[in-house]
């Protein structure tokens, strides 16, 4: 199960906690368009509903993102995956893993859940074909033991999509 594939989790540090609370308050005040944070009492794992933008391949479709925060967030990137069923997209594997540089090497502590969400939505919106990545089967097979996408060495397909 993808949801159980979270890395062994250490409790959030004080800094991470502080920061996430701020983000949550900011989110409540000003949520990114097309997203809905599902309220739970778990600060370390957010589940966010994504609505495909109008005029794109994913219009009127709803997916769920699961965001898990590491102990040292925001110095480390959160782990972001789609819950089953993941949208059909050239950069999204059927196990929900997302090939997006800002989630890995290009993470910056100035980013927020909100800005990550917007990046993911824009990635969806710019897709021209609803299809899995070419190496989907191989990758998913490799990840069967519950490997986190953050352990993958990604090479990013192209900057456009």
């Amino acid at each position: 199960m993808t949801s159980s594939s979270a890395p062994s989790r250490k409790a959030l540090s004080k800094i991470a906690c502080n920061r996430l609370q701020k983000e949550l308050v900011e989110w409540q005040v000003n949520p990114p368009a097309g997203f809905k944070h599902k309220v739970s009492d778990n600060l370390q794992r957010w589940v966010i509903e994504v609505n495909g933008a109008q005029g794109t391949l994913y219009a009127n479709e709803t997916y769920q993102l699961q965001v898990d925060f590491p102990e040292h967030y925001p110095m480390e990137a959160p782990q972001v995956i789609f819950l089953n069923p993941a949208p059909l997209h050239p950069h999204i594997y059927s196990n929900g893993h997302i090939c997006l540089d800002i989630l890995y090497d290009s993470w910056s502590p100035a980013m927020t859940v909100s800005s990550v969400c917007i990046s993911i939505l824009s990635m969806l919106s710019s897709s021209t074909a609803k299809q899995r990545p070419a190496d989907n089967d191989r990758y998913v097979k490799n990840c069967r033991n519950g490997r986190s996408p953050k352990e993958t060495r990604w090479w990013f397909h192209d900057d456009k999509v």
Partner: protein
Amino acid sequence: MFPSRSKMKVKILNWHAVASWTWDAQDETCGICRMAFDGCCPDCKYPGDDCPLIWGACNHSFHLHCILKWVNSQTSQPHCPMCRREWQFKAWEQRRRGFQLETPGQC
């Protein structure tokens, strides 16, 4: 009618004014910890000299403690969390620290 010139003089013996200090930063909050610049980073107890601000060459500012944490966590060349340019401390910070030495008792 002339407003007559007063024969009273006011002599100020002491004027005790109140001011607040502010870091003169472009943003209100630190991009890393999201705490107010005029407050302090989550690791600090006291604002001001105890938890100073630092500027990069790109002119982005952060709590000193926050950016150091980021810079130290990067294995490769660190970049500015805001603009992704290579992170360099702004040169005049050196000068500022020089001043700081004048005021005693602060870390």
